[in-house]
């Protein structure tokens, strides 16, 4: 799982080999831009990032004791980390109990599977978890979640014959609150940015349930539209965090990262397979240093 930065590392190695500083900056920037776009990072965003790196690299002076090349690398590191949502460590602990999470996203992005993965993750952390099946749209959505809940021993609230998703969500949440559940996870139907009725439904669920965290579940293979779509979702119900799914394929996930820029939310988890335990906590700084192949980058950044 290399995500976005597959070929950037090679460009960086070439950069470190030396030669004229300004020329190698230019060349690196050109390659970076191309690789970002090939990895599906939104075109405008890729231009913005590379321009910012270039400007900082050519216009600012490195602090004393740091070479220009080292300085350049820390700039690249910082900007790429920012692309992934910043240098904060994601906080995965619920800030209060009960903690109500609502999953939203496009059709087929992986919400239902991820709902079960999250439930299992938190169950292993020792929390009492409940799942609410508030997708009344997709055929057998309730059965899917029910079967997953049975696999992991987590209770699922659902009303397969009710087609009012808002009322199911509201009742499901009170059902679990009455049973002193710590974390309540609501699965919702897939929808896209042009389906106003469905967006309206999502808004209503969130207004009535008042979730503590709305998570956008987004497929790693999505392209340039991710930005628009995430923005539209964010305007409908503010997105608190992001989960990128299906990173076990060949997709680099750059589209999903456009959602970070569009919402200001962080990637908290990534999905790396269909199985229930194939969910990883995501840590942007560690990820960037690993991908750039620069083990000691954090100490370098500290030195700077």
């Amino acid at each position, binding site marked *: 799982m290399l995500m976005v930065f597959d070929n950037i590392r090679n460009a960086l190695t070439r950069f470190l080999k030396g030669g004229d500083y300004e020329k190698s900056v230019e060349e690196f920037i050109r390659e970076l831009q*191309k690789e970002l*776009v*090939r*990895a*599906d990072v939104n*075109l405008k965003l890729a231009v913005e990032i590379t321009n910012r790196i270039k400007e900082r690299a050519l216009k600012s002076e490195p602090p004393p004791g740091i070479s220009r090349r080292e300085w350049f690398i820390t700039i690249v590191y910082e900007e790429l980390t920012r692309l992934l949502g910043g240098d904060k460590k994601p906080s995965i602990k619920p800030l209060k109990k009960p903690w109500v999470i609502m999953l939203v996203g*496009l*059709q*087929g*992005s*992986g919400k*239902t*599977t991820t709902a*079960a993965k999250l439930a299992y993750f938190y169950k292993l952390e020792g929390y009492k978890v409940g799942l609410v099946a508030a997708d009344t*749209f*997709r*055929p*057998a*959505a309730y*059965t*899917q*979640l*029910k*079967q*997953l809940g049975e*696999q992991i021993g987590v209770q699922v609230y659902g009303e397969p014959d009710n087609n009012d998703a808002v009322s199911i969500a509201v009742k499901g949440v009170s059902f679990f609150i009455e049973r002193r559940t710590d974390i309540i996870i609501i699965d919702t139907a897939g929808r*896209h*940015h*042009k389906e106003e009725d469905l967006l309206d439904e999502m808004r209503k669920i969130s207004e009535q349930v008042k979730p503590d965290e709305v998570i956008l579940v987004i*497929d*790693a*293979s*999505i*392209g*340039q*539209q*991710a930005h628009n*779509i995430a923005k539209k979702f964010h305007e409908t119900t503010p997105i608190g965090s992001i989960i990128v799914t*299906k990173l*076990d*394929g*060949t*997709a*680099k996930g*750059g*589209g999903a990262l456009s959602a970070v820029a569009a919402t200001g939310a962080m990637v908290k988890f990534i999905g790396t397979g*269909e199985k229930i335990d194939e969910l990883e906590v995501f840590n942007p700084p560690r990820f960037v240093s690993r991908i750039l192949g620069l083990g000691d980058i954090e100490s370098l950044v500290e030195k700077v």
Partner: protein
Amino acid sequence: LSSREKLLESIEELKLSLVANDVAYEVAENIASELTRRVEEGSIKSREDLVKALREILLSYFTGLNSIDLLSLASSRKPLKIVFLGVNGVGKTTTIAKVAVYMRENGFKPLMVAADTFRAGAQEQLKIHSERTGIPVFTGKYGSDPAALVYDAIQYGLNRGFNVFLIDTAGRMHVDVDLVNELKKIVRVAKPDVKILVVDALTGNDALEQARFFNEAVGVDCVVVTKVDAYEEGGVPLSLVYILKKPVLFIGVGQDYKDLKPFNPIEYVERILTGLQ
């Protein structure tokens, strides 16, 4: 700037606009280098020439492909067997229900085959489609061998006069060796007349990879691009025919049974061009 340099600059801009519409980078580069070649050889002299040449190049991707017509195939081959493949969540199962309705409307007797025995709810999903459409489905047990299920389904269907078999498969990543082997086995057993790759219209550059890998593994005869209602001007159809040289059979434009349309290359190319200007 000379007019040649201006044209080359315009080509670079066009390339980026194509990329902004999710025409895969490799494909956009290919189009750009063809345009550049035409500028160099003098057949493109103005901005108008450029747009004209671009339209021509885009259309050329869709011309000369073997056309596939399920209705005439179904009349000539009894039964017609179709396997649907693709990565996770693209819309295979939904598309099967839509195609089943389409085939029935045209006088055929389709059987849907629920050979996804892996994903939670997959069997029930197709069962519900069956209840809603009245089109029968052949189901099996979770965890059972999908190839064996397909074999049984075909025996069952042949004895009962079904003449179109629509075989659903579990979504899988094209790089997952075990799952790709499983798919090969399904294909060996089903001996399908048509293998349809299903791809989501919102996919970025990975559309190339999906097309390449599935084509190498089992061969792809045509594609269905789904969720086009979310992204009409998206570049995925172009990226797919670039790799596969196989036609786009249908597009999915919503979640209802009626939301399946034949793909119209001319309309599509105009939509891309409008998006660029």
